[in-house]
């Protein structure tokens, strides 16, 4: 009798533990709440270098590139090396892979591999229509996701490119004119691909690349007290959204001043806080494998800033 009672207790405890385990794991993997960022180190970039994109790799390695085709490699010790690419290549996206740097050319949609010895190999070419222009490409696990504008259809299109798999993942609504085709910044997150519309209303969309499900987060411009007069909105831009677990950070920039607004989204996709900052700073990306965020700051010249981040208080948990 006592043995049966012990077994029943053991079984009950096991069931309770197993029943809660997935929730706990998920909660640990997806937390949200106020965050604090503390600058750890900086790196001054060469003068006259406009940055178009950044790619992160393991062990803190980074690659930056400009629209003019300049590419810089930054190693673990934050030393900077200029990489030589043929003039004809203008990267729309770069990925740091074990084989070398993968590059997707903005004009031709050709994919190249730059090996560690500096040699370049053509790997393939993504499907690109006559009236399509690539804005950005991000490497996602095993292939590219390309953000482009279809000038004929007047839509923003998100297209996968992995060998023969070149299906469209997302198409925006048709715009009235070429000038109003929306442009989105693409960033990776554990819950899907993030699309941050660069101009008002700064829509943030989270896209599941497998199912194609697109969730639109709460609108920034609907936020009362944001302090941007409606007639000034055309002068504001959004930078890429950054995911810290289930918290999202979005930088809004005033092109006419140093004013920035850092918007924090919570796990329920609602805006929880907007922080005004009177300094030319933008959050760029979360660094993989560490609790750190990379930002760009203008202090004389443009410089990179590594921030350590932590929860201000015990974060709330969320089951996606």
């Amino acid at each position: 009798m006592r043995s049966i009672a012990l077994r029943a207790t053991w079984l009950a405890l096991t069931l309770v533990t197993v029943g809660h385990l997935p929730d706990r794991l998920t909660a640990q993997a997806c937390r949200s709440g106020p965050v604090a960022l503390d600058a750890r180190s900086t790196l001054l970039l060469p003068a006259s270098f406009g940055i178009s994109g950044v790619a992160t790799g393991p062990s803190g390695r980074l690659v930056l590139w400009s629209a003019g085709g300049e590419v810089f490699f930054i190693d673990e010790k934050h030393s900077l090396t200029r990489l030589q690419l043929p003039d004809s290549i203008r990267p729309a996206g770069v990925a740091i892979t074990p084989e070398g740097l993968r590059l997707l050319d903005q004009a031709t949609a050709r994919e190249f591999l730059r090996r560690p010895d500096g040699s370049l190999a053509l790997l393939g070419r993504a499907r690109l229509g006559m009236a399509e222009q690539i804005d950005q490409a991000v490497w996602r696990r095993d292939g590219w996701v390309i953000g482009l504008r279809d000038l004929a259809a007047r839509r923003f299109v998100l297209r996968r490119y992995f060998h023969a798999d070149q299906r469209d993942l997302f198409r925006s609504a048709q715009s009235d004119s070429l000038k109003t085709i929306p442009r989105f910044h693409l960033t990776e997150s554990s819950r899907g691909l993030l699309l941050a519309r660069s101009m008002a209303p700064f829509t943030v969309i989270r896209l599941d690349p497998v199912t194609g499900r697109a969730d639109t987060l709460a609108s920034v411009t609907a936020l009362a007290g944001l302090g941007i007069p409606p007639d000034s909105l055309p002068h504001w831009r959004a930078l890429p959204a950054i995911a810290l677990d289930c918290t999202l950070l979005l930088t809004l920039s005033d092109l006419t001043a140093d004013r920035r607004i850092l918007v924090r989204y919570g796990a329920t996709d609602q805006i929880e806080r907007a922080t005004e900052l009177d300094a030319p700073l933008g959050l760029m990306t979360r660094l993989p494998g560490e609790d750190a965020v990379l930002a760009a700051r203008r202090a004389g010249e443009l410089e990179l800033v590594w921030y350590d981040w932590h929860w201000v208080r015990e974060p709330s948990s969320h089951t996606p």
Partner: protein
Amino acid sequence: MRVRYFGLVLGFVLLLAPLSAASAQSLASLAAANTATTAVEKAGPGCWGCEQVGGYPVCRGGVVPGYYNCIASVLQTCQVSSSGCGGSAAVPLDPDGSTQYVSRGSLMGVTVAFHAGDPPVRRNCEGVVVARKQTSDDITTVRMRTGSLTL
């Protein structure tokens, strides 16, 4: 002979024009679509704007100290930073949220020079900052304000 020489010079200038345009597009790659839909710009008082002359957009208007708009170039063509010429959506951005013209210290290949007494910030007709000069105090302030952030 003189006519032939003039033809050579004209040919050279015409050859430079598309090169200049190509360079502008590489600087602001996102602008490509918009430059194709140039609208006639009504120049505001004191600002440079764009006008269509013989089917080509050209810069017209006055000059406001500290403001950079259309840039004088070969054939005086409109450039992507000018209001109505390139469209504000096309302005290329650096990740700190400023226009890339600020980083480059030049606008469409033309160096922005700061002389004594010049305003520290240059803007285009839309008010967008296209060049700036930060003092050491400015830099210290920026570093202080961004050392720690609570969001």
